[in-house]
C-alpha cells in the first residue's frame, strides 16, 4: 500500500509539475505565470507606488535628476546631453521595454522567434522588402556622424543599464505571456525603429493594383477613376504659387508606350501587410497677426494606429544647451514632436509615392542572374535566417538587384511563371541619418536652424511645420523624393532597361515650402502638397477633405486663442458629406422607399453635418455612400484573379458633381441602362438592410457603430489589455480623424509666448505596464477632447518642489 501511495503521488506531482510548468498542455505555464513571487503579481504596481529612487549607474558622466510629475512625465535635468539621452533610454526601457523590443523585432522580421510559424509570412515580407538592409544603411550613416553616434551610444547604454539590472520576476507582463526574455538593445535596433516608422508612413503602395486597373480599364478610363488632382484640392502650398522650372523636362523612355502604358498582362500579386493609408496627421501654425497674444500658435495631431502601449512617451529634456519638451518614440533619443524655449515643430505625412516595383527576369530559379541592359547581370544574394519558435530556422534567399531587393519571386508568395519576379526600389533603403534632424531641432533657436536641421531628413516624407517666439511660421514638405517622368512609377516598370530607373531626386531646394506667408498661417493635412503647376510628377496617396475644413476655418479666424485651436483639432464637421448629401437627397426616388428607408433619409436631411458621437445620420450617410460606390464601380472593377482597388472617395463625388450622367453609373452587367436616380435608390435599399440590423442592435449611433478602440499591440490576443467602446466622434476626412482604431495619437498645441504655453494629450499613459494605473489614464480625457497643460519645469520649479517624485542618478 505504502509503495502504491508513494508511486501515485509521485506521478501526480510529476504531472502537475509538467502541466503547470510548460506551454505544451495549457497555453500558459500557470505555475510560474500566476506565482506570487515570479509571475504576473510582481507586475501589479501599487496605485500609491513611490517612484522616487537613488540610482548609481555606470556610463553617465555626471549627476542627473529626473523629476516626475503627477502624470508620470519625466523632466530630465542633466549637465551633459549624452547623460540626458542615457537617462531617456533608461526611462524608455523602464516604462516601455517590451513595446520597444517587439516593434524592432517586427521591423526586423523576427516575430516568428516569439510566436512561432504563424508569423513566418510576415517575417519573410519584412526581410524581402529590405527592412534589415535599410536599417543597416541607416545605422552606417548615423554612426558616421560623431554627434549622432555618441547620442545613440548613450541612449543604448541607458536601455541596457535597465535591462541588465532587471530581475526575471519584474519582466513586463507580455514577456511572461509569450515566454521569452529581452535581449540587449543596440544602436541597430534604433535604426530598425526608424525603418519601422518609414514603412508605416512611406510604405503604402499600389503599383500592382494600378497596373491591373490600367490593363482592365484602358488609359482613358484609368485616368478618370484614378486621377490624382481633385477639383476640390486645397494644397499645402496655396494655389497660384509660382515654382522654379526644372533644368530639363523628363521624358518617358521610347518603349514606354508599348512596355509600360500598354503592357499585355496583369500582375498576379496581392500585397499583404500594407501600412494603413490613413496614417497621416493635421498640423498648422498661425502667425502672431492672427492670435490674441500676438505670438504664433502651432498645433499638430499625428494620426496613427491607436495602440497600448502608446507609440508616444511624453518627456522634457533640460540640458545647458537646450530645454525641449514633447513626445518621444520609445526606441529613439530626443523629442520627436514638441518645442523648446525658442521654437516648436511638428509633422504630417507627405503621402508621396517613394516605392516602385520593377519586373525582373531571372535566368533560372537559382536567382543568380537577371537580364538588364541586354546582358545577364549577377544578383547579390542575401540569406535571411528566420528563427522560428519550436521549429527549425527558415532560410530565405533574397536576391538584390540594381533596384533593390526582389520582394516577390517564385518562392514568395505567389507562384510566378517564367522566372519573373518583382524587385523593389524604395527611398527607405537609402543611407541617411534622420535622427540628426531631431537632435538639431531639439536645440534649434530660429528659422535658419530649422531649415538646416530638416535637410538631414530623407524619409518618410513629412510636412514639417515650425513656429518661433521670434514670430516666424513655416512649413516645408521634406524628404528626398524621386525625380520622375509623368506617370513613372504608377505601374510596375520593366526591370531590364536602365532607362526606366529613377532619374535621381528632386532638388531639395524645390521641395514645396511656405515661410511666413501673407495669409498668416500654414497648414497641412496629408493632401497633395501643390497644385498642378508644380513642375514635378508627384504621385501619392493623398487626403482631400480635412484640409478643406482646416483652411476654411483658419482663413476666417483672427484673435485666435489656444481654446480655438483645441476646438479645431476636435472639429467633427464632415465637409465630404456637405458636398455629397445633395446628390443623395436630390436623386433618391422617395416614392420607392419603405418607412425605414424614409426615416434614414430624413435623419440625413436633418443632420447638422457633424460626426458627433450620438449622431445617427453619420452611419446612414456612410453606409449609403459606400453602397453607392460599390453599386457604381463594382461592375467595371471586377477581376477575379488579380488585385484591384476601388477609386478614392473623392473620385465618385467629384464626377457626379461635374456630371450626373457620369459614364460609370450604368451597370454594364445588366441589359437596362441605369441612371443616377436608379443607382442612388438601389444603393439606399442595399444599405438599409445593414442599417435596419444596426438599428435593432442599437448601433445606429456613430460612436457605437464606430466603437473607437485603442488596441494592445498584440491586438485580438490581448483584448482585456485594450480600451474599447470609447465614445468618440470624428472619422475619416474629419479634422478629428478618430476612426475605429486609428486617429489622433497625440494632440499638441503650443503658444509661443514667454513663458511658453503648451497643451497636449495622447490616448494612453506613460507606463506600458497593464498593471499600472498609468497604463491608460489619459484615454478618458482624450475621448472627451480634453488636454493637459504641459508642465515645462524650470530650475525655479525644482527648488519650489513642484514635482511628485525624484530620481537621483549618479555615476557608479
Amino acid at each position: 500500500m505504502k509503495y502504491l501511495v508513494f508511486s501515485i503521488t509521485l506521478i501526480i506531482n510529476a504531472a502537475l509539475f509538467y502541466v503547470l510548468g510548460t506551454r505544451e498542455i495549457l497555453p500558459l505555464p500557470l505555475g510560474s505565470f500566476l506565482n506570487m513571487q515570479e509571475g504576473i503579481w510582481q507586475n501589479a504596481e501599487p496605485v500609491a507606488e513611490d517612484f522616487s529612487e537613488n540610482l548609481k549607474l555606470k556610463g553617465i558622466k555626471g549627476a542627473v535628476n529626473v523629476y516626475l510629475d503627477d502624470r508620470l512625465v519625466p523632466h530630465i535635468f542633466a549637465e551633459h546631453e549624452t547623460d540626458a539621452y542615457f537617462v531617456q533610454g533608461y526611462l524608455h526601457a523602464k516604462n516601455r521595454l517590451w513595446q520597444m523590443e517587439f516593434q524592432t523585432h517586427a521591423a526586423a522580421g523576427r516575430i516568428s522567434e516569439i510566436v512561432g510559424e504563424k508569423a513566418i509570412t510576415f517575417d519573410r515580407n519584412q526581410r524581402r522588402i529590405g527592412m534589415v538592409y535599410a536599417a543597416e544603411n541607416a545605422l552606417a550613416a548615423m554612426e558616421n556622424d560623431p554627434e549622432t553616434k555618441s547620442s545613440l551610444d548613450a541612449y543604448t547604454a541607458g536601455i541596457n543599464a535597465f535591462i541588465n539590472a532587471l530581475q526575471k520576476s519584474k519582466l513586463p507582463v507580455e514577456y511572461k505571456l509569450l515566454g521569452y526574455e529581452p535581449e540587449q538593445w543596440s544602436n541597430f535596433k534604433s535604426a530598425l525603429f526608424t525603418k519601422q516608422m518609414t514603412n508605416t508612413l512611406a510604405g503604402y503602395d499600389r503599383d500592382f493594383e494600378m497596373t491591373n486597373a490600367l490593363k482592365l480599364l484602358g488609359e482613358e478610363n484609368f485616368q478618370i477613376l484614378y486621377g490624382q488632382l481633385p477639383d476640390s484640392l486645397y494644397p499645402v502650398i496655396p494655389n497660384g504659387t509660382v515654382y522654379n522650372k526644372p533644368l530639363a523636362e523628363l521624358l518617358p523612355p521610347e518603349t514606354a508606350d508599348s512596355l509600360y502604358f500598354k503592357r499585355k498582362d496583369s500582375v498576379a500579386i496581392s500585397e499583404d501587410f500594407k501600412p494603413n493609408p490613413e496614417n497621416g496627421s493635421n498640423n498648422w501654425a498661425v502667425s502672431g497677426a492672427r492670435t490674441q497674444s500676438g505670438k504664433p500658435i502651432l498645433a499638430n495631431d499625428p494620426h496613427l494606429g491607436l495602440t497600448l502601449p502608446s507609440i508616444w512617451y511624453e518627456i522634457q529634456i533640460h540640458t545647458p544647451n537646450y530645454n525641449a519638451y514633447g513626445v518621444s518614440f520609445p526606441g529613439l533619443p530626443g523629442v520627436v514632436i514638441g518645442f523648446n524655449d525658442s521654437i516648436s515643430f511638428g509633422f504630417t505625412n507627405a503621402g508621396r509615392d517613394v516605392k516602385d516595383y520593377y519586373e525582373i527576369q531571372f535566368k533560372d530559379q537559382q536567382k543568380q542572374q537577371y537580364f538588364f541592359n541586354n546582358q545577364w547581370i549577377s544578383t547579390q544574394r542575401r540569406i535571411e535566417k528566420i528563427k522560428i519558435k519550436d521549429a527549425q530556422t527558415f532560410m530565405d534567399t533574397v536576391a538584390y538587384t540594381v533596384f533593390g531587393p526582389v520582394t516577390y519571386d517564385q518562392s514568395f508568395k505567389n507562384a510566378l511563371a517564367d522566372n519573373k519576379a518583382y524587385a523593389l526600389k524604395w527611398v527607405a533603403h537609402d543611407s541617411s541619418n534622420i535622427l540628426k534632424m531631431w537632435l538639431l531641432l531639439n536645440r534649434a533657436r530660429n528659422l535658419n536652424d530649422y531649415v538646416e536641421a530638416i535637410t538631414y531628413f530623407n524619409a518618410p516624407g513629412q510636412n514639417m511645420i515650425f513656429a518661433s517666439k521670434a514670430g516666424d511660421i513655416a512649413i516645408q514638405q521634406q524628404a528626398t523624393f524621386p525625380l520622375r517622368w509623368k506617370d513613372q512609377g504608377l505601374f510596375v516598370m520593366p526591370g531590364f532597361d536602365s532607362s526606366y530607373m529613377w532619374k535621381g531626386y528632386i532638388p531639395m531646394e524645390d521641395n514645396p515650402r511656405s515661410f511666413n506667408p501673407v495669409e498668416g498661417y500654414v497648414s497641412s493635412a496629408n493632401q497633395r502638397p501643390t497644385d498642378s503647376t508644380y513642375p514635378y510628377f508627384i504621385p501619392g496617396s493623398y487626403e482631400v477633405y480635412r484640409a478643406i475644413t482646416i483652411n476654411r476655418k483658419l482663413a476666417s479666424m483672427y484673435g485666435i486663442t489656444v481654446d480655438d485651436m483645441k476646438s479645431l483639432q476636435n472639429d467633427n464637421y464632415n465637409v465630404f458629406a456637405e458636398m455629397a448629401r445633395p446628390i443623395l437627397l436630390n436623386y433618391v426616388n422617395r416614392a420607392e422607399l419603405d418607412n425605414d428607408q424614409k426615416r434614414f433619409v430624413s435623419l440625413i436631411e436633418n443632420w447638422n453635418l457633424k460626426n458627433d458621437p450620438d449622431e445617427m445620420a453619420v452611419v446612414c450617410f456612410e453606409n449609403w455612400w459606400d453602397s453607392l460606390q460599390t453599386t457604381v464601380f463594382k461592375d467595371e472593377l471586377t477581376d477575379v484573379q488579380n488585385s484591384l482597388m476601388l477609386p478614392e472617395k473623392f473620385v465618385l463625388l467629384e464626377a457626379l458633381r461635374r456630371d450626373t450622367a457620369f459614364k460609370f453609373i450604368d451597370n454594364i452587367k445588366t441589359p437596362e441602362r441605369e441612371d443616377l436616380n436608379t443607382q442612388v435608390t438601389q444603393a439606399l435599399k442595399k444599405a438599409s438592410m445593414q442599417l435596419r440590423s444596426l438599428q435593432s442592435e442599437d448601433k445606429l449611433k456613430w460612436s457605437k457603430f464606430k466603437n473607437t478602440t485603442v488596441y494592445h499591440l498584440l491586438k485580438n490576443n490581448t483584448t482585456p489589455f485594450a480600451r474599447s467602446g470609447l465614445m468618440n466622434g470624428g472619422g475619416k476626412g474629419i479634422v478629428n480623424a478618430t476612426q475605429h482604431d486609428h486617429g489622433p495619437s497625440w494632440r499638441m498645441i503650443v503658444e509661443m509666448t514667454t513663458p511658453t504655453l503648451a497643451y497636449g494629450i495622447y490616448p494612453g499613459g506613460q507606463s506600458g505596464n497593464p498593471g499600472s494605473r498609468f497604463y491608460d489614464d489619459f484615454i478618458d480625457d482624450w475621448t472627451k477632447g480634453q488636454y493637459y497643460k504641459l508642465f515645462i519645469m524650470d530650475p525655479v520649479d525644482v527648488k519650489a518642489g513642484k514635482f511628485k517624485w525624484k530620481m537621483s542618478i549618479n555615476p557608479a
Partner: protein
Amino acid sequence: MIKLSAATIISGLLYFALGLFLPWWSSFIAGLLVGLLMYQNYLASFLTAFIGVCLVACGYIFAVSSLNEHILAKRIALLILKQDSPELLIAVSGLISAVTAGTAAITGRSFMFLFKR
C-alpha cells in the same frame, strides 16, 4: 492540534522563504519538506501543506492586488479565465501553489513511510 498548526505555519513560511530564491516550484519543495520532516498521516500532511501555502499565497496575492486596486487582476482574469473576477484569479493562483504543496507533502510523507517497519 499544536502539531497541525505548527505544520501549517511551517509550510507557509517555507513556501515564502524558498520562493525568494527558487522558481515557482518552491511550493513542491515546501510541501515535500513538510511531508518528510513532520510526522503526520497522509490527510494531515496534505491539509497542513495545502492550507499553509494557500493562506500565504492567497494572502500575499490579495494584498498585492488590493494595493493595485486589482487593475492587473481584472485584465488577467478576463484574459485567461474569461471572467471579470479578480477574486477568482487570486483563488486560482493560490490554489495552484496549495495543491502542488499538498500533493508534494503526501509524496514526502509516503517516502518516509517506505522506510517504516
